[in-house]
């Protein structure tokens, strides 16, 4: 199967010398969903920002559709791969939800009509059609998360990166988010601490600790018990709680 993304021996250290990622290698197939988990400060978010080309000075290679991201122009890169921020308030700046979602098509040169159609289509998928005239600053957190996702989904990137998409969401908002993420046909990398969310959108897991991948494989694997006992305990805990209810 054709690869959407291939990362080889990726290492990155911050300016103060702290190593964020060490020799990270993995690949992502077309339309595959990958959950990236690990403790705080493990390097998960840094990995996403590196994929977006936001940090320079890394070693190793990041190839998107066989081309190194260093050789791609900003426009080519952002049309192929795009990121939904952890905090939607950092992502939104327009006066209305409609302008917010239309920002990318407008800037990528879509015509007025095409832009309007794309906005309506994406808003319908994310269930934010009734919010189009509202100001993003006045929405609830769950609505903001969905608008932030819509503003990126409208680009229809081949690879969608999501940074903690389910954090601070209630059950209903999480359900809508799961439906939207599963409805997106492209490849996805989802950084999350939420096991329940990870299990509902992905079958493959990468577990990172101290910038090193210690597990890369399916959730249902005997290896998971050996390599990520803490994570497995958390999954078992969750299942026990659900069965108690």
């Amino acid at each position, binding site marked *: 199967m054709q690869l959407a993304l291939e990362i080889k021996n990726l290492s990155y250290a911050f300016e103060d010398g702290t190593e964020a990622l060490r020799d990270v290698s993995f690949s992502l197939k077309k339309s595959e969903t990958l959950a990236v988990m690990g403790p705080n400060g493990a390097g998960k978010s840094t990995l996403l920002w590196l994929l977006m080309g936001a940090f320079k000075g890394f070693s190793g290679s990041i190839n998107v559709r066989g081309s190194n991201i260093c050789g791609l122009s900003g*426009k080519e890169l952002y049309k192929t791969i795009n990121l939904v921020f952890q905090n939607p308030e950092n992502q939104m700046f*327009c*006066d209305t939800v409609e302008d917010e979602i239309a920002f990318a098509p407008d800037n990528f040169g879509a015509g007025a009509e095409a832009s309007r159609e794309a906005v309506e289509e994406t808003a319908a998928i994310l269930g934010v059609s009734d919010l189009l005239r509202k100001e993003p600053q006045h929405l609830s957190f769950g609505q903001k998360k969905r608008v932030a996702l819509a503003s990126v989904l409208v680009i229809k990137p081949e690879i969608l990166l999501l940074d903690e998409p389910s954090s601070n969401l209630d059950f209903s908002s999480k359900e809508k988010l799961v439906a939207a993420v599963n409805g997106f046909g492209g490849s996805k990398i989802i950084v999350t601490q939420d096991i329940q969310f990870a299990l509902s959108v992905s079958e493959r897991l990468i577990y990172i600790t101290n910038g090193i991948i210690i597990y890369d494989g399916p959730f249902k694997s005997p290896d998971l018990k050996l390599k990520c006992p803490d994570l497995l305990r958390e999954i078992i805990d969750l299942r026990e709680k659900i069965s108690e209810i």
Partner: protein
Amino acid sequence: MHFKIDEFHSEPGFIQKINPAVKLGFIFLIPAVCAIIPAEKVGASFLIALLSLILLKFSKIPLRIFLKRMIPMTPFLLYPFILIIHAFIYGHNLFMSETASIYNKTIDLFGCRIEFMASEISLAINLLLKSLATVNTVIVFTAATRFKSLSGALKIFMFPDYFIMVFSSTWRYLEALVNEILIMRTATEFKFFRPANIFSVKTFSMIFGSIFLRSLRKAEMNNISMKFRGYKTGNAVRAKSCAPAAGSDAVFSLITIIFMAFACFFI
């Protein structure tokens, strides 16, 4: 102690119903008229200031809030106020004349001789009225207008797209700054911080520093978000829509302009 653009846009006032482009026009026109009124025409400035107060009444901006927030204007009011009181003490009328008893009055203030001329007092009052009219007008029209329709009105006045984008971004930045201030204030209250001594200055400096750093960080993240979505400096921004002017807007404009013309040319 500040008014925000669109803060009172939801009040059920007449000013709120006027077309944003018409309001923007008066935001430029009234200060311009104030600027060209000659110094000796105190009566004209008085009428324009009165007009701005009538507009305030029609905007339904609560007078109590308005007065409270105008406190920073007090020093500007005090100077002419003292002169006016002084003029009254010496049996003079408000608008002065060169035959007034205050004419060429000299005060010895700790060895510093200050001469008050009738024309100076007239100038001071005129300046006060002009400032009041200008500040009132800008506050009333901006506070009673939705921000997004104000940026739409800028488009009608053929402001460049780039300017509108900067205007919108600056507004968002200020909003982020205000939010950070509110968060920080609540956080300090929760931690029982009370400014007690000189060392509080250090804490205050740290708070202010972090407020600016946090809002700058947010602005940077916004900028990255724009970049990820294809924005490059100089890109055209989406044209904001502004509804066409109605008959009531024309009537309002006509009455206001006639009133201003009367103040300028016949008083």
